[in-house]
């Protein structure tokens, strides 16, 4: 397992343009598989246009205590891109201006941003209906200064969404690093102790499952049933919902697909599973993604591919909801990851 980001390894794929090239050449360039645009045009709903803005997803930086092998952010301890307090202030202004009812903080590990707590405190005053923090769990037990995070989350009524790739040690550790499973279980117990995931506490703890390899996730309900049973039985852990997320061929997951010679089969599986109904509900239609330096994207994936929104309003500094509403969403072959089967988004399946 790699200990450094693609960026620190100076790997070609750390360059978004190289990734986009890879995703357009090969089997797609040769016409063996249809381009996303061609496939999407057949549904009659292309180009994709945004619906009502509901979710503002803010990436607080690419620094992370982990270096997961499937990470589409290419996050890691060696990434220095971190949102400053000034940019956070711009976010706060936009939160007040926009009609989004959900605020979703992600990273990297958002908690590692030195201004994380200040930002949460300020943002929670803005009257957001659903305030999500995407926590990788291990950060909670990584250092004494994070031990009180469950209490901090509780105080601000944060909705915690955490990734746990599987309910067994082996698969989790293979994807996220050795020891990650045990630490995640410890963190889940701390969250449960604070009331998270417990019946009637009103404190939501959702888990994210994503396949540990070159295959697609299956039925979300069946998987949730298995996760709930195993985590309860083995560790007495409770949680609310399980979101199944498809790995998109971006950054380190793309690197893995290529290195393991699974790229073509994986892309074929995604294309074959293209579901027009999922396409109607892809998350970029109700989400805006903000990068650590304040730029706007249709989604976190487009952010990693440096595909800024196709609008004059491209930065927090000139945030214009009406202008943004008129934009066309930028797509490429990675979008097949959102439209396969029951679809995939940061909230799991979309149908």
């Amino acid at each position: 397992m790699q200990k450094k980001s693609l960026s620190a390894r100076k790997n070609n794929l750390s360059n978004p343009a190289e990734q986009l090239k890879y995703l357009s050449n090969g089997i797609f360039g040769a016409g063996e598989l249809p381009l996303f645009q061609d496939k999407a045009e057949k549904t009659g709903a292309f180009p994709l246009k945004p619906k009502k803005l509901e979710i503002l997803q803010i990436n607080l930086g690419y620094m992370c205590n982990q270096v997961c092998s499937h990470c589409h952010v290419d996050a890691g301890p060696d990434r220095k891109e971190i949102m400053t307090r000034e940019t956070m202030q711009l976010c706060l202004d936009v939160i007040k201006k926009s009609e989004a009812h959900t605020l979703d903080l992600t990273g990297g590990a958002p908690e590692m941003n030195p201004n994380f707590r200040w930002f949460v405190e300020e943002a929670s005053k803005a009257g957001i209906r659903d305030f999500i923090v995407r926590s990788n769990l291990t950060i909670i037990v990584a250092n004494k200064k994070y031990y009180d995070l469950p209490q901090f989350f509780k105080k601000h009524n944060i909705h915690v969404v955490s990734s746990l790739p599987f309910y067994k040690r082996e698969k989790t550790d293979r994807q996220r690093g050795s020891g990650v499973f045990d630490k995640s279980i410890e963190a889940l117990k701390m969250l449960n102790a604070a009331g998270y995931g417990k019946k009637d506490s009103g404190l939501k703890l959702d888990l994210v499952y994503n396949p540990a390899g070159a295959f697609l996730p299956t039925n979300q309900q069946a998987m949730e049933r298995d996760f709930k049973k195993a985590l309860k039985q083995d560790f007495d852990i409770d949680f609310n919902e399980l979101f199944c997320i498809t790995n998109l061929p971006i950054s380190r997951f793309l690197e893995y697909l290529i290195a393991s010679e699974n790229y073509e089969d994986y892309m074929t599986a995604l294309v074959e599973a293209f579901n027009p109904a999922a396409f109607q509900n892809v998350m970029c239609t109700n989400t805006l993604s903000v990068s650590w330096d304040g730029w706007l994207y249709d989604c976190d994936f487009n952010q990693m591919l440096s595909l800024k929104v196709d609008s004059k309003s491209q930065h927090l500094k000139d945030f214009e909801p009406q202008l943004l509403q008129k934009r066309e969403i930028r797509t490429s072959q990675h979008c097949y990851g959102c439209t396969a089967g029951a679809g995939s988004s940061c909230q799991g399946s979309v149908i």
Partner: protein
Amino acid sequence: MSKTYYDPADLKKFGKISEWDEELGSKFFDYYNSVFEEGALTAREKSLIALAVSHVVQCPYCIDAYTKDGLERGIEKEEMMEAIHVGAAIKGGATLVHGVQMMNKYNKLSM
């Protein structure tokens, strides 16, 4: 000409058998899909049975397909291997139980 009888890429073309006989092909695939739906058995249990049978009938396409299907359903490798042993045990047993026929015949023909 490919040098082997089996080409992994052919699995993807399975659906094409309907092209030469639409009616029977669709009947088969409708039936196939219904069989694997959740019923008295869960889809997960059916996937494990399919994996075991794939080995018994030694179909490389089915082995690929149901290993992947199992991974997608969160079936673990220990479960997959146990399922295959069930298949192997039945197949081995089926060979061995014919030994009784051999014994019967032997006894009948011998003085």
